[in-house]
């Protein structure tokens, strides 16, 4: 008798729909992901129960790290890439301190992040080769609050607000930073008539008991 041979079929599963879904997800995530630039300042923010998400776009960030050094940063306009806020900021500061910046320097500055240096070193900082060399310039923005003429942080904030009047001010302090230092920064902001700030915090929960304890 002739044996009927069953054709051995490989137990294949059609993966096409799964792949379709995966690629759809991948595309979605890729397009919606907002890439955060590597922050050059390490700041361990304190926790709070606040659930308000951090503002994005047109934000001026003043970071205070654990060594009480103040860093200034302003974004380039967030999602709206046509704004070139940083370029305008650099021109404004250049006009004020009578420093001439080349086109390349302005373009380079647009791509950079926070800094903490006297304005005299700004040119060298922009032209430095890499982030490590730039980090060597971190020595603090002069912010002697008694003399407005020498308070460079004041002029950075003023220039930033001239460039973008609807700027959100964010303070990103390390939890081990001295409050006095943060207060100095806040005082400079107050001198600029900024009285509403956002303090960056991590989300944490707090348990509250009322009834049984009273």
């Amino acid at each position: 008798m002739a044996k009927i041979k069953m054709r051995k079929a490989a137990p294949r599963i059609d993966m096409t729909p799964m792949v379709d879904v995966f690629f759809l997800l991948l595309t979605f995530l890729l397009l919606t992901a907002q890439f955060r630039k590597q922050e050059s300042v390490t700041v361990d923010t304190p926790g709070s129960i606040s659930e308000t998400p951090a503002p994005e776009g047109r934000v001026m960030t003043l970071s205070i790290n654990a060594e009480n050094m103040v860093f200034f940063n302003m974004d380039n306009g967030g999602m709206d890439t046509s704004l070139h806020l940083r370029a305008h900021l650099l021109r404004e500061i250049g006009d004020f301190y009578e420093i001439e910046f080349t086109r390349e320097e302005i373009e380079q500055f647009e791509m950079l992040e926070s800094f903490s240096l006297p304005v005299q070193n700004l040119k060298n900082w922009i032209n430095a080769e890499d982030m490590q060399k730039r980090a060597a310039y971190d020595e603090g923005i002069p912010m002697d609050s008694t003399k407005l003429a020498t308070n460079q942080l004041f002029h950075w904030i003023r220039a930033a607000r001239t460039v973008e009047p609807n700027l959100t001010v964010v303070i990103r302090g390390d939890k081990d930073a001295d409050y006095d230092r943060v207060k100095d920064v806040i005082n400079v902001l107050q001198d600029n008539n900024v009285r509403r700030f956002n303090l960056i915090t991590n989300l944490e929960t707090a348990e509250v008991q009322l009834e049984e304890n009273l």
Partner: protein
Amino acid sequence: MAEIAETGGSQHKGKKRAKKQSTHIDMTPMVDLACLLITFFVLTSAFTKSKVMEIVYPERQEAGQEANAPQIPESRAFHIILTENDRILWYTGRADPTRETLPTLYETDFSANGIRRILLERNKSLYTQINEMQQAVLEGRLEVPRDSITSMRRQMMTDDNVGPIILIKATEGVRYKNMVDIVDEMAITNIARYSIVDLNSVEQIMVRRFFAAESSGAASSN
């Protein structure tokens, strides 16, 4: 799919044809890669969002000008003085140098049974009022749009006229974390009115005396 055509094609007699290979591609590596990328994006994008706490500072006082106390009813005034090493001093009423006795300073800490409990006790009516409203919304007894919960809460805070009015001050050497924590406590305990102000000269003396008494007390007990 592709295999169905295979049987139909081999009906011709005699002629031997090369068996058609099925057009399956092994998609496993591609799927692996896609999975990996998805995992990467999910993990990196979702958790980097940081939160903010909004805070409004009072107008700056001119340098050299003594910080004059805001006019607030003495019975509601509650002063918090943050000091070094996470210690909190507090007093009620007004520190008036023209009076015979200055208010007593009490010490507490940042734990749930410390400053939070003190604040809750003082702010009990407003806290329970807001809490009840939020509970009612959660249980569906009260149907309001999501946005109006915040405005209802704000309205309750504006209407409140018994809760404490808190003035937060800090001595030198206080860490930034302490300030954020205390402002956070205000949010946790639903304090309607608070403000961050500078320490005045009377309070500086009070704090100095408090620590002097503490160190002399510690010395005499040894």
